[in-house]
């Protein structure tokens, strides 16, 4: 394994790293992914799997829409059903001011080509009879959806290996080698890899990887909670997003996923807090009252990575030839994963991207 040479070495086997590997390999590149744990073990495998195009930063919309096209293609090509479904998303509006903001967002997004509507409370309850709480309407985006994230990243990893990608798990990067000419390779706990191109897709550990070559990645790691109820008969169609009361999605198996917003955390503390579970369930009881009678069977945490302007970091690292970053997706990385991969592969191979990613440059923070 030592001293193997690749066109590209990718650090991190989450959705961003695996997607990029897939598209690079399809373009004929020799790719190796090094992962400190196992594929999808961190943020990707711990997220709710929501795939939202609506309610993102305006710069993201074309990327999010491209991602939906890719998700559909990937599902068709996959031998494994990773449960990508276009069940729609409903985002509740709490007051007139909030509704006005959402209506403006709907106008902007429709102009960008996204199918979405502002609907009133009665229409919202027709879509979701089980939803209650003090909302006065909602944004309905029917082409939003979800997937099972662990299965999705696994499926994409398998597809990538069929195109020749090599994935090393339990393989932690200890050093990124840079010479006067740029990137020369990475040293890991399982050997040295030589390459002229390294992609830092290490999620919550991307700042650490950056530090190895003196590159500052100004991203804050926060802890998000996700809770799961017992299996229930199907009663929720679209995903329910509430901004303040968490988000809810009934998986294909019948379990309801309940998300609780990210909070700053010391170190990489993974423990589930009683407070988060109690608050999330209390809010769930307001929005979906019937959940009061459901049992919670599991709660877990994952890290999400946030930049000061809530935009991800995608692009080359200035002053270090051959080094790239695709990280800090502010809790919305899974949805756009395949498009991130396609764009990063384009950037690495052709130095251009078909959808602009200037807004995500690392050096915008200087």
């Amino acid at each position: 394994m030592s001293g193997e040479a690749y066109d590209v070495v990718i650090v991190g086997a989450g959705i961003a790293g695996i997607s990029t590997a897939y598209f690079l390999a399809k373009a004929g590149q020799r790719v190796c992914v090094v992962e400190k744990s196992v594929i999808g073990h961190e943020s990707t495998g711990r997220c709710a799997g929501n795939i939202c195009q609506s309610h993102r930063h305006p710069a993201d919309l074309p990327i999010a829409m491209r991602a939906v096209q890719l998700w559909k293609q990937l599902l068709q090509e996959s031998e494994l059903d990773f449960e990508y479904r276009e069940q729609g998303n409903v985002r509740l509006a709490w007051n007139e001011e909030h509704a006005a903001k959402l209506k403006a967002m709907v106008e902007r997004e429709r102009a960008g080509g996204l199918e979405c509507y502002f609907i009133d409370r009665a229409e919202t309850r027709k879509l979701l009879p089980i939803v209650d709480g003090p909302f006065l309407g909602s944004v309905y985006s029917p082409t939003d959806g979800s997937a099972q994230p662990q299965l999705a990243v696994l499926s994409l990893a398998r597809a990538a290996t069929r195109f020749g990608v090599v994935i090393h798990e339990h393989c932690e990067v200890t050093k990124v080698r840079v010479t006067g000419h740029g990137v020369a390779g990475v040293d890991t706990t399982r050997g040295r890899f030589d390459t002229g191109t390294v992609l830092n897709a290490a999620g919550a550990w991307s700042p650490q990887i950056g530090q190895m070559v003196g590159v500052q990645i100004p991203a804050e790691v926060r802890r998000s909670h996700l809770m799961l109820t017992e299996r229930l008969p199907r009663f929720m169609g679209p995903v329910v997003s509430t901004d303040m009361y968490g988000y809810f999605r009934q998986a294909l198996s019948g379990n309801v996923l309940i998300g609780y917003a990210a909070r700053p955390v010391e170190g990489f503390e993974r423990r589930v807090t009683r407070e988060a579970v109690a608050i999330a369930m209390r809010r769930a009881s307001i929005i979906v009252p019937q959940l009061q009678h459901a049992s919670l069977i599991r709660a877990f945490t994952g890290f999400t990575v946030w930049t000061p302007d809530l935009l991800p970091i995608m692009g080359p690292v200035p002053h270090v030839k051959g080094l790239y970053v695709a990280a800090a997706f502010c809790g919305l990385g899974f949805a756009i994963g395949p498009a991130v991969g396609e764009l990063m592969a384009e950037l690495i191979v052709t130095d251009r991207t078909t959808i602009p990613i200037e807004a995500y440059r690392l050096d915008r923070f200087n």
Partner: protein
Amino acid sequence: MADRRISNGVARGTAFEILVDGRSIPAHEGETIGAALIAAGIHGLRHTAKRHEPRGMFCGIGLCYECAMVINGVPNIRACQTLATPGCTVETQKGLGRLGGAE
């Protein structure tokens, strides 16, 4: 219905009746619903969601959820962990617990 309780030399709590799918069966203070059901020879407690196959008590200690029944109108209640009370209603649960709980 046969009563499978050991009677020789065993003192039990107050006797009363519980309703199981509409039929009365005996129970004693201190018994779980699971125990009362087994004493009455009732082993099929629920049906699975996909293939509607019967299931009964397995671990008996509250971990496996095979004994989940609709008890006093609330689904997914473990019979092996729930004490029998006079007049409580117990129903074979068919598939996933319906939402809404006690009605």
